[in-house]
């Protein structure tokens, strides 16, 4: 079993790239791997607590909660990116961490595979 680190800079809704990251994480965890998900840039929106489920928008919070419960999944949001967008520590989804960008590099250090989703 390996460790996959996924880094995403994409926006929460609208860009299905972030849906891809979460669904891939889910599939990897189901197969027994462990996954670190780093959300940076507009991707930090995924870490915002209190997102309402609408059928017209991606709603990934529930899947993230299920993944946290497995103990095989970590999600960390870029602290500066979140603050710039007006999300403070108390706005962070339960189970999600906040660190500076070096956390992502450390996660890459120990990862067997890194999938970096750089685009918007």
């Amino acid at each position, binding site marked *: 079993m*390996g460790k996959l680190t996924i880094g995403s800079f994409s926006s929460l809704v609208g860009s*299905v*790239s972030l849906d891809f990251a979460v669904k891939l994480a889910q*599939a990897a965890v189901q*197969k027994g*791997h462990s996954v670190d998900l780093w959300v940076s840039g507009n991707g930090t929106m995924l870490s915002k607590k209190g997102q309402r489920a609408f059928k017209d928008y991606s709603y990934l919070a529930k899947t993230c909660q299920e993944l946290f419960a497995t103990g095989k999944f970590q999600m960390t949001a870029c602290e500066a990116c979140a603050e710039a967008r007006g999300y403070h520590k108390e706005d962070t989804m339960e189970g999600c961490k906040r660190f500076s960008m070096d956390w992502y590099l450390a996660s890459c250090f120990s990862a067997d*595979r890194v*999938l970096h989703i750089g685009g918007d």
Partner: protein
Amino acid sequence: MKLGVFLSDFKSGNDTLDRLTAEKLGIILVGNGIYNATVKENGKASPVLDKKATFYALTEDLESRGFTAANLDSRVKAVTYGDVVDLIFNEYEKLIWL
């Protein structure tokens, strides 16, 4: 190197892809990348498929956009998220998202 490339777009990203070389190259079409395997422009298949590589397309993204595996170019194999996990860990060492 054994390189797995996720192509998430249609028409853009091809210039980068053109130049990539690897001993073993896999191209996984995801998101709007699946149009490369399902749509012909002016009767011509996407030039992406001429690349010397093994091609996959994500079933979930195919179906979300109104296609099925039956619509795929014959060079492309339909895969699920679970299959993609196996490709990542078993077939390729480095990954790129375009």
